[in-house]
């Protein structure tokens, strides 16, 4: 793979504008819409080849630092240690917001609770609150579901809800967004969280946070406490076909795929 990337990179450096190849790597969160947008872009610009892979935000950023990718997809901002490492290698990461994601707490449809404050969520996830009756529900234990501590979705939860406190070790971890919906839908005592694109109200019940509904509007204006931006990172200001693709991604044609995959577009 790395050899292939390097070969592609050499190909791009030697190629002319709009007749090159773009390598894109990174977060699996962005993968669905990045993939379809890339396909549409290639159809519109037959001279350009885009290869998309989803090795995770960390791997994408690593590839950008190593110069083996043009665009790093990331569901989180680069960590300061990553930016420093990039600088020592002569790479200047530039951030492009391409979509919004909205992480929504979810419970089983039979659960009477419909609103929690950020502090209540925090207490549930750190293990201080262990019974639904403490947050206005039935006298039943809470089954806390979380994502892996290294997933992009968890990092949003960690920043905005847990605020640096560790999640209770008793919390169950599920491996993917789809598995989260599955698990919550099957367990009346569970609470979990998932990206707005995955929350299907036929199976799970989304909760308000601090009285705010998780909707595209509240995600864009930042009113919903657990909304986040999704990024594409480039090395320096993008040029040539990379710039064309980033512009395409942010434009109406690219944003169509953002909406189609259940994320929140830059503009309504």
């Amino acid at each position, binding site marked *: 793979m790395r050899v292939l990337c390097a070969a592609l990179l050499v190909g791009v450096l030697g190629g002319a504008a709009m007749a090159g190849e773009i390598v894109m790597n990174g977060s699996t969160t962005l993968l669905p819409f990045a993939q379809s947008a890339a396909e549409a872009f290639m159809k519109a610009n037959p001279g350009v080849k885009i290869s998309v892979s989803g090795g995770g935000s960390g*791997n994408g950023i690593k590839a950008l630092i190593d110069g083996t990718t043009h665009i790093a997809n990331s569901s989180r901002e680069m960590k300061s240690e990553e930016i420093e490492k990039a600088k020592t290698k002569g790479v200047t990461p530039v951030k492009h917001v391409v979509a919004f994601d909205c992480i929504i707490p979810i419970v089983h449809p039979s659960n009477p609770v419909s609103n929690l404050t950020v502090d209540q969520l925090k207490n549930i996830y750190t293990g201080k609150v262990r019974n639904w009756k403490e947050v206005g529900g039935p006298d039943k234990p809470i089954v806390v579901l979380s994502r892996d501590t290294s997933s992009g979705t968890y990092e949003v939860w960690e920043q905005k809800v847990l605020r640096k406190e560790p999640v209770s070790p*008793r919390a169950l*971890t599920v491996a993917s967004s789809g598995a989260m919906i599955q698990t919550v839908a099957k367990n009346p005592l569970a609470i979990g969280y998932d990206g707005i694109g995955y929350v299907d109200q036929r199976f799970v019940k989304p909760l308000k946070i601090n009285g705010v509904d998780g909707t595209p509007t509240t995600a864009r204006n930042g009113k919903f406490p657990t909304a986040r931006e999704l990024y594409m990172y480039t090395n320096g200001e993008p040029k040539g076909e990379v710039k064309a693709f980033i512009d395409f991604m942010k434009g109406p044609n690219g944003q169509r795929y953002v909406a189609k995959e259940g994320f929140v577009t830059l503009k309504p």
Partner: protein
Amino acid sequence: MDAMRGDRLPRTLVAGVAFTGIIVVGAILVFLVKESLPVLRDASLMEMLTGPYWYPSQEEPKFGMLPLWVGSLAVTGLSALMSLPFSVGLGIFLSEVCPRGLREIIKPAVEVMGFLPSVVLGFIGMVVIAPHLQERFGVLTGLNMLNASFLLGILMLPTVASLTEDSLSSVPKEVRDGSYALGATRLETTFRVVVPYAARGIGSACILGVMRALGETMVVLMAAGGAAIIPESLVDPVRPLTSAIAAEMGETPVGSSHYHALFFMGLMLLVATMGLNLAVMALERRRRV
């Protein structure tokens, strides 16, 4: 001269292939050690092996792997307890008791079970067994050690049963005949003569099955619950080493301590499976003597 060359060529080829295998295994070991050692900058060996908290990406990370390796051992041990008696029993049944016609059906069926992708089993654990456990037995979550162990048990059954059957079938006919000639019944022959004769083969079949369970990733990732705690009951969720590696590797910054810690887990697993392998080899050697 020509005959010599004709002899030498296949020998060289086979030796070359075998040697490549050894080099690959050696390279993997070197790679694992090299990638896992840097974690010692941030956590001592003692802390990793006995620390109770696994918070690898916290600002002050904690690399305690105790719940993880205990989880691995617990889920593997429980699955062995549930599955081995049944698997060995099935092997004995197939080899000694089963009428030939029925065996022609059961044996291929068991072998096909071995081809069952583990992700399918994991999925069954998630959507069928877990809700069932919650509704019928009122446990907090059906994604737990019991569920995962049950699935791992199913996974190791074909290997153990068919290897047991193989080692029983390879017991020489003279041994059985001798036993019958001494007036032993079929039951006595099976359990006093044939099974003890094949005991080491059955033992290594069991160890191979256990290794299969210890290294299995998808099933535990999907069905074990993934909470990094030391289980206190059969229905507590666990997070075995394999599922921690699979779940965390994709999103961790390459070169971070967390990344190296995951390689250290891989090394732990490799050492464990190597230990089991050596046990098998020791058993086999004793059999030959």
